[in-house]
């Protein structure tokens, strides 16, 4: 009962907040005034992508520069040392791409300067990049034909008018909730038993606020939001889960508003919500099974599997957070995913395989766009018309671009997993033996390809092969699914619009919702089913049949 109420509060509450937030976001992105606006005119899609690429290139370069020289830079009270080049490459790629896959441990390896000026900065601007690109996509699709907007304007609007005020609000709430916010170095304590404990701390509240809001997920501390400083209470925990999903949800409404098709957005929202709720139900159900390793031992297990979970966050947090953080490409964790029950892990994996059940800020909806194109294409044919979306025909060029997009995700995940599962690069780094080891590798590539950033931690992933491979995967998986959908819209925008009649495929009713759901589930499930069987499913069956 308390489980159900918590889920209802988090999911229902954020869904409710998402509506007015979407309204505000739309206003900010369409009409917001920005500090720099001179000579920033509406761009074509290619110009937009070009500006985005240049700015993101700078983001990567600056982050790389700061991290590689962090030992010489200020704000280093605990004298953190240098980082290896491959870790720096991986981390720069990770934060530039809004992934925040962390092959380092924040409190042990990063200076405050790195945390703030490299990582937190990217948590703002990479999230803003995602929102900007979605706004451009929606403008291109809308029939008003005012072009795609200007990337630099959009970036400022998303950063200053949207993310910044929200981050301030959440950071203040976090501070009130007991999160540390200091620039002082570690505290040294002498425990009651006389031992010495060094307690790492830092400007946590500010960092964690944007980490959650921007679907970044990169923690200040290694164990992310399981760390008591990063998530001190049940209250901050609920606020965090709100922060994880609310902007991705609002992005769907912004898409609908810019497009001028709110009902269409509502159908998309519904489909996403159904999938999210499905994943939550799945993970909560399977996580309520006790820890299998304690079978036959005198251990009283009342609330399911507690390994890797924090008591103050409540038993439901583990699976609920796991489903939410992977539905949205956030990647922060509220429990240790590698200690989730075997089948529970299928929910976060599915979230990353589909990667559009709200998804990353901005980009989640962009990912969904590809599935919409495929669904529209099949549904259009099934009603006997050349498929069309928003009054524009979907033809060879659009299908070609969508096809590449569809292909990239399984290629990066399954290809990477195959490579690492059969070489020492992966085999020598797994934490758990057996199918769980396979899942660790699969999860790492899924997380990188979904720009998620969570992990089946314990995997020894701070190695040159892991750092380079996942770095490359993150970069491809970030920019290809932004570039190709924009190219599709660029191609659609150039077409003669087709009038809407009774014979037109409606994309704003339940039937289309079912069609979309079927396409997502079929393509997602069919592609990753064998991997799922060889990882979580067989591990579960091994436990059950033992």
């Amino acid at each position: 009962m308390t489980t159900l109420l918590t889920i209802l509060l988090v999911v229902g509450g954020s869904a409710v907040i998402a509506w007015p937030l979407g309204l505000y976001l739309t206003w900010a992105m369409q009409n917001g005034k920005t500090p720099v606006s001179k000579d920033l005119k509406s761009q074509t899609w290619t110009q937009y992508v070009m500006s985005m690429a240049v700015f993101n290139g700078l983001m990567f370069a600056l982050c790389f520069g700061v991290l590689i020289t962090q030992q010489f830079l200020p704000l280093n009270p605990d004298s953190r040392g240098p980082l290896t080049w491959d870790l720096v490459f991986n981390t720069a790629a990770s934060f530039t791409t809004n992934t925040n896959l962390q092959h380092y441990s924040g409190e042990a390896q990063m200076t405050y300067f790195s945390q703030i000026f490299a990582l937190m900065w990217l948590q703002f601007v990479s999230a803003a990049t995602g929102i900007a690109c979605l706004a451009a996509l929606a403008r291109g699709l809308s029939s008003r034909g005012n072009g795609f907007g200007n990337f630099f304007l959009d970036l400022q609007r998303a950063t200053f008018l949207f993310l910044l005020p929200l981050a301030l609000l959440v950071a203040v709430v976090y501070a009130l909730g007991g999160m540390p916010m200091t620039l002082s170095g570690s505290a040294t304590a002498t425990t009651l038993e006389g031992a010495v404990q060094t307690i790492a701390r830092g400007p946590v509240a500010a960092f964690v606020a944007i980490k959650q809001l921007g679907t970044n997920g990169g923690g200040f501390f290694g164990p992310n939001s399981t760390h008591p400083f990063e998530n001190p209470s049940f209250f901050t925990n609920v606020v965090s889960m709100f922060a994880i999903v609310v902007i991705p949800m609002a992005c769907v409404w912004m898409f609908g508003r810019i497009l001028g098709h709110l009902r269409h957005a509502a159908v998309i929202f519904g489909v996403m919500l159904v999938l999210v709720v499905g994943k939550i139900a799945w993970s909560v159900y399977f996580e309520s099974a006790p820890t299998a390793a304690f079978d036959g031992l005198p251990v009283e297990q009342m609330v399911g599997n507690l390994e890797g979970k924090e008591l103050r966050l409540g038993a439901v947090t583990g699976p609920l957070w796991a489903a939410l953080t992977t539905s949205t490409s956030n990647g922060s964790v509220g429990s240790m995913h590698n200690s989730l029950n075997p089948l529970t892990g299928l929910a976060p994996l599915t979230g990353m395989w589909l990667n559009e059940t709200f998804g990353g800020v901005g980009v989640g909806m962009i990912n969904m766009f590809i599935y919409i194109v495929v669904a529209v294409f099949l549904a259009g044919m099934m009603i006997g018309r050349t498929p069309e979306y928003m009054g524009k025909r979907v033809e060879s060029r659009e299908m070609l671009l969508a096809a590449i997009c569809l292909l990239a995700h399984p290629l990066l995940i399954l290809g990477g997993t195959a490579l690492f599962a059969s070489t020492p690069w992966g085999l020598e780094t797994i934490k758990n033996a057996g199918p769980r080891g396979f899942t660790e590798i699969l999860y790492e590539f899924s997380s990188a390809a979904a720009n998620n950033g969570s992990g089946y931690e314990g995997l020894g992933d701070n190695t040159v092969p892991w750092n380079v491979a996942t770095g490359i995967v993150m970069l491809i998986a970030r920019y290809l699914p932004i570039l190709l959908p924009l190219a599709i819209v660029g191609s659609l925008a150039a077409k003669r619009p087709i009038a809407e009649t009774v014979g037109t495929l409606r994309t704003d009713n339940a039937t289309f919702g079912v069609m979309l759901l079927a396409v997502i589930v079929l393509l997602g499930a069919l592609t990753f089913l064998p991997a799922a069987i060889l990882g979580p499913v067989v591990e579960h069956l091994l436990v059950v049949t033992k």
Partner: protein
Amino acid sequence: MKNLITSFKLVALTLLVCCVAYPLTVLAFAQAITPNSADGSLLTNADGEVIGSRLIAQSFVSPRYFWPRPSAADYNAQGAGGSNLSPSSPALTERAKALVSAFGASAERPLPADLVTASGAGLDPHISEAAALYQVARVAAARGWTEEKVEALVEAQAVRIGGALVPDKIVPVLALNIALDQAEDVRQTNP
């Protein structure tokens, strides 16, 4: 080229706003309104020495104290982490067996699960109410107190996880142990 110039401008602007103005604002607010938790919820003894953080578990091995949940990071507060062991891992069984014997659990008196499972960060400052009550007898015996007295201290420290929403009770171990010591001090000063 124009892209590059504008990009540089915006890099400077965003750095200034997001990395200087924003964190300083939050810092000023937190240090002004909630100075203690802003510095890490540190607890000090009568002499003003830091003995730990209310939010960070520390190791207790003496039977006179309540023991926290096991930590895969050995209560290292600058290198925290979970066990990352699969729930079906044999290593987990081994660890559980060790803990079962340390607590002296038996089939008649099974050990609450949170005392066998490592938390996500290995720094979970709480144990469940059941886990605290489980240790009352040991602590009482070690200190030579009645169990009722120890139990009362446990109940005094116990809090609900999520208020009315999640009413299950948890107990902050460090705070409870400090309370134990304080009670001991009171007894010593007023025999």
